[in-house]
């Protein structure tokens, strides 16, 4: 978690692709909670991670609220995508869920997180077009980065 927060603070907060796309990789933390994890535990981890990200990004409450929301739906989402005969403590990955199912899982979770994050941050629809472009751009970059991190993690585990 600390690595994610540190990378967010030191690297990703400074990336604004085409002026719109900013990756928010903190959400990747939520991908890692296996099936059967206590809901309160995921909520607290998500909240704390979001809060730390807020502190380093100077956006108090924005990431915390978004991460808490994403943490709230993560167990239900993973349960709905769980393959047959999966282990009770199955952790989501390319191997356990399959590539496309994992991509779907990551995309949905990231979408919820990004929607909440940018809506709370903008808190209005005055610059709707800019907001949509930022949201879509950030979502694409964040999802791609999360998938890349997951790919690297999976390869490392296999090796």
């Amino acid at each position, binding site marked *: 978690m600390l690595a994610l927060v540190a990378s967010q603070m030191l690297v990703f907060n400074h990336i604004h692709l085409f002026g719109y796309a900013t990756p928010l990789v903190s959400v990747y933390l939520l991908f890692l909670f296996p099936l059967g994890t206590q809901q309160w535990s995921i909520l607290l981890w998500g909240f704390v991670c979001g809060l730390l990200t807020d502190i380093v990004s100077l956006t108090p409450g924005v990431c*915390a*609220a978004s991460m808490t929301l994403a943490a709230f739906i993560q167990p239900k989402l993973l349960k709905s995508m769980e393959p047959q005969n999966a282990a009770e403590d199955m952790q989501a990955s390319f191997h356990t869920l399959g590539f496309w199912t994992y991509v779907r899982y990551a995309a949905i979770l990231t979408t919820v997180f990004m929607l909440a994050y940018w809506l709370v941050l903008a808190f209005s629809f005055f610059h709707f077009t800019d907001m949509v472009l930022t949201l879509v751009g950030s979502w694409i970059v964040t999802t791609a980065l999360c998938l890349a991190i997951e790919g690297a993690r999976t390869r490392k585990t296999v090796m």
Partner: protein
Amino acid sequence: MHSLLDFIARYYHWLLFLLLEGISFVLLFQFNHYHNSVWFTTANTVVGQINAWEQEAIRFVHLHEANRALTERNLLLEQQNALLREHILELNHDSTFVEQLQQDMMENMTSIPGKVVTNSVLRRDNYITINVGEADGVRPEMGVVSGTGIVGIVYMTSTHYSIVMPLLNSKSRISCRLHGTGYFGYLKWEGDDPLYAVLDDIPRHARFNVGDMVETSGFSSVFPAGMFVGKVSAIENSDDGLSYKLIVHLGTDFGRLQDITVLAETFHDELHSLEQRADSLAQQ
């Protein structure tokens, strides 16, 4: 209590979720100027709207009381308005053209102002009671006028009250003429509209128009000549076809009649006494 604990145990993650979101939003509104201002603006709007609804509800609850107070106030103002109107009428009593005309004609007449006590316009034979009587100098067969035209003839008198036979009575016959022509006839009421009467016996060769003024002829001592009665509103043939029957729009609105003036000839008593003596001598 057990149910409450059971509920909390079952839905604790919902409660935790709401708690954490609550903390997040508190931080959001507390430490972000933009969100803080939006929050306060929205909160103020919402609070203002709720306060407005509350005030509306309170006003609605107290509407009955306000209504009663308004009714009382309205009655008071109506009374004041009536008094003021009466006062203005008294102050402007001789300001209208018709009244000025009537006063010019009343050189040999004494006027006795009075008020209508009872009145009716719906019967075939209407009578009006006025608040002046013998004590004020009123005698039977005196003329009664209002500010806008003639009213009728005094029928009976008591010490302080008199009964007037108005135009709106089937027995009333008042000699009238068409202004400026000299053609005269008898004005009578046919019992329909209290605003219209009929002037009979206008000869066929008379020339006149709708809108011409009808006035008293002066052929009796009741009304002096030239007092405004009304205006011709329609011309019809009489029943026998030998004369015209004029429909006259009366100047006096009997439905709203309040102030009247009794016309007393200055030497009415002397004249009456002389006539009586002459009658008695003739009988001898």
